């Protein structure tokens, strides 16, 4: 296992290098100029020239890139043009909100998708299978930005049971410690803040998780369908086990491997999906930060956020690989 881990970690270096080069080139190639976006409407040529010098934009592109690489190797993505603070610090303040949102999305998606998928797969062509398949298709084909607006209209507008946006109501949460509102509120035993957080996170988490829900449901269903024909399932039935036990103990547990793979892959999609959902719900996470950075052409911040997402994606895949061994004892590295 250690040798495998080292091999995998070494393999991530070229991936990160390639991504950094691509992001750096693409953001610099995109039309637009950070000095013109950030210095206000009344700026003049002299101001622009000074800002370019200050931000190092007057140097050749390859010099800028190598400077960035050297600094990034030491864990420094430079200073944000817009915030005038180290990029790492800016991302750190916003990342907990995105992680919290992503975790709730996964919880919603898995809690609904796995039982529905197992149920649908164990009773093919039944009404529950048709319902599950329809739900899956609905989840996959629903654009998250549209669903987000519809949820606001329905749950906040017509039913008026949830807040329209934001991460918390002013004046309820206690002092921030970790940046994770739920965790902080639980630590402080601030139950109104816990409830407040849950009411705020539900809509964005649902909007973000519905796509994952659809995919997970379909993958679980097909995995269950496949496992249902295995000999050990027939044996379990022949032994006289109740159908419930057969399905949940023998079929579902063996159908989990592809499901875990998809959860891993979809985590990356969740991160990218959060960019839109966070913007619609004014959720102050790294996704909305990326939009702000892109609009301002804040090169260091854009690169920093994308690199953070890339590293998160690589780390998630490593963890998923590790989980295979836990779920399937036959797998050894």
């Amino acid at each position, binding site marked *: 296992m250690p040798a495998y881990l080292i091999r995998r970690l070494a393999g991530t270096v070229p991936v990160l290098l390639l991504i950094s080069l691509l992001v750096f080139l693409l953001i610099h190639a995109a039309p637009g100029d950070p000095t013109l976006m950030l210095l206000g409407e009344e700026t003049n040529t002299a101001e622009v020239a000074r800002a370019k010098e200050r931000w190092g934009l007057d140097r050749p592109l390859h010099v800028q890139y190598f400077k960035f690489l050297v600094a990034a190797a030491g864990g420094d993505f430079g200073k944000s043009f817009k915030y*005038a603070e180290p990029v790492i610090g800016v991302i750190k303040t*916003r990342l907990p909100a995105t992680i919290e949102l992503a975790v709730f999305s996964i919880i919603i998606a898995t809690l609904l998708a796995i039982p529905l998928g197992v149920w649908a797969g164990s009773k093919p062509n039944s009404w529950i299978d048709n319902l599950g398949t329809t739900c899956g298709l609905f989840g996959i084909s629903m654009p998250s930005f549209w669903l987000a607006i519809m949820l606001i209209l329905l749950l906040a507008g017509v039913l008026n049971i949830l807040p329209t946006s934001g991460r918390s109501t*002013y004046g309820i949460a206690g002092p921030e410690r970790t940046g994770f509102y739920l965790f902080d509120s639980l630590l402080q035993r601030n139950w109104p803040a816990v409830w407040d957080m849950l009411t705020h996170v539900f809509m964005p988490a649902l909007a973000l998780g519905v796509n994952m829900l659809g995919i997970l449901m379909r993958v679980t269903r097909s995995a269950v369908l496949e496992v249902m024909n295995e000999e050990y399932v027939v044996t379990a039935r022949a032994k006289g086990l109740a159908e419930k036990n057969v399905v949940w103990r023998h079929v579902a547990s063996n159908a989990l491997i592809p499901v875990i793979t998809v959860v891993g892959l979809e985590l990356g999609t969740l991160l990218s999906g959060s960019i839109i959902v966070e913007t619609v719900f*004014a959720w102050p996470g790294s996704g909305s930060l990326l939009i702000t950075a892109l609009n301002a052409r804040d090169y260091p911040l854009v690169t920093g956020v994308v690199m953070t997402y890339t590293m998160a994606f690589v780390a998630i895949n490593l963890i998923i690989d590790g989980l295979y061994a836990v779920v399937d004892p036959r797998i050894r590295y």
Partner: protein
Amino acid sequence: MNPRHQPTLVALLAALALLAGPTANTHAQTRVSVGVTETIETHNPYGDSVSLLYGIWSEITGPFCTYSYSKGDFEGRLAERWKVENPTTWIFSLSKNYKFNDGSPVTAADVVHSIMTRVIKDPQSKQKASVAPSIVNVEAIDKFTVRVITDKPTAPLLSLLCDRLIVTSKAAFDKYGREAADKEHMMGGGPYRLKELIPGQRLVIAKRPDHPVAKKNPRAPDEVVYRVMRETEQRVTALLNDEVQIAQFIPPHLRQRVEKSPNLKITPVDSVEIMFLAMQPKPPFDKKEVRQAVCHAINRDQIVATLLEGFASRLDGPLGPGQYGYDPNLKPKMNYDPERAKKLLAQAGYPNGVDVELQTPVGRYTLDKQLTEAMIPMLNAAGFRARLLTPEWATLWASVQKGTIPFYYMGRGSVQDPSATLHQYFHTGETPRIGYSNPKLDELLDKEQQEFDPKKRRQYLSQAMSILTEDAPACFMWRHKLLWGLNNRVEYQPLPDARIYAIDMKVRR
């Protein structure tokens, strides 16, 4: 019900009530929440250059002085009064009643520090060009008097300083350093103090009841929460749900949803943002007749009446009523006249029409794409072969600033005094946005900037604007009426720019 279950039920209901607590109205004091469209991203008051934030920070720290739209003139606040010592030297006398949160007075040293250290010299400042483009030195004459020196006569200096100059504490800066002073020890001399700022989510200010300005309006809210809400649906829904009591910029097509509620109303206000079509003097727009043909081809009245449902005021020149230097008798007026447009095109050497590409931002201004889409058939009817392009805003704006777009629809905000705008877009060599050059216009614009007699300055401005309208490097279209959604519990007259002053609000208790 089984009596044994009653205590359980009571406990359950109590727990539910506790959990549901936050959704109930627990305001001990008056609080107004405002849904705003701009993002609030940094603790550094000098780190952004947008109207909304100038207003909020000005309220926390002053403001230095303010423009009264009702009076059409500037009014003193922290700077009680001012005089022009000579064309490049202004003297500002500070009020002795303005005190920072810690009780120390706001002095001339703080003003010098704010302009010289924070606005001009600090590399993190994004406000130098907007607040102090011509200021070369600021010095304290005594504890409450400041001398401001400019590199050239700057008659419109007040329009740059009022509602924009943010005066922060020099002592806090020296003691804690820039970052800690801004984040943890924000000192201001205004009627409100900063209470909470969560970047990207909200900013909260709390009233200082002992402040001389706050005492004048005891019904001003004790707390104001500015919530970032970029989506229009979100702002409207939040207003209907009483999550916010004021919502900025309701689009005309959503106003009926607000008006249906008996607790809400829509308040329209003429924006000071002027909308125009800019034309670079490159073929075919190098010919005045072509530019004039564009202006005569667009039926502004029809667009205002239909697409904008009347929520805009037609412009017959760069300015409208309420803006400094507005001249109702300005001539010529570029009325809708497609036949004349055709003749002008023929005169310019294009009897069979000419290809043009109009570029517009999408979603930046009210119905920008729809309005420009309506202009295309009008241009075509006058003999142009027009095509609409819709680049992303950052791309369009960078290209406009570099002068590489020949024909575009654009807005220019914060035009209380038109001097900066006219120089920026039309003075030779100032910026390449239009690339227009006219020595006569340059002379008039230079004169108005150096003329401290308001009557003469207005005359110069009027002459300059007449040349612009006739020579048509831009067709001036309209000023939008901005629609604000207001809860009836709050009395507030929105301002024509995007500034919001909580001290002007009145809450019904």
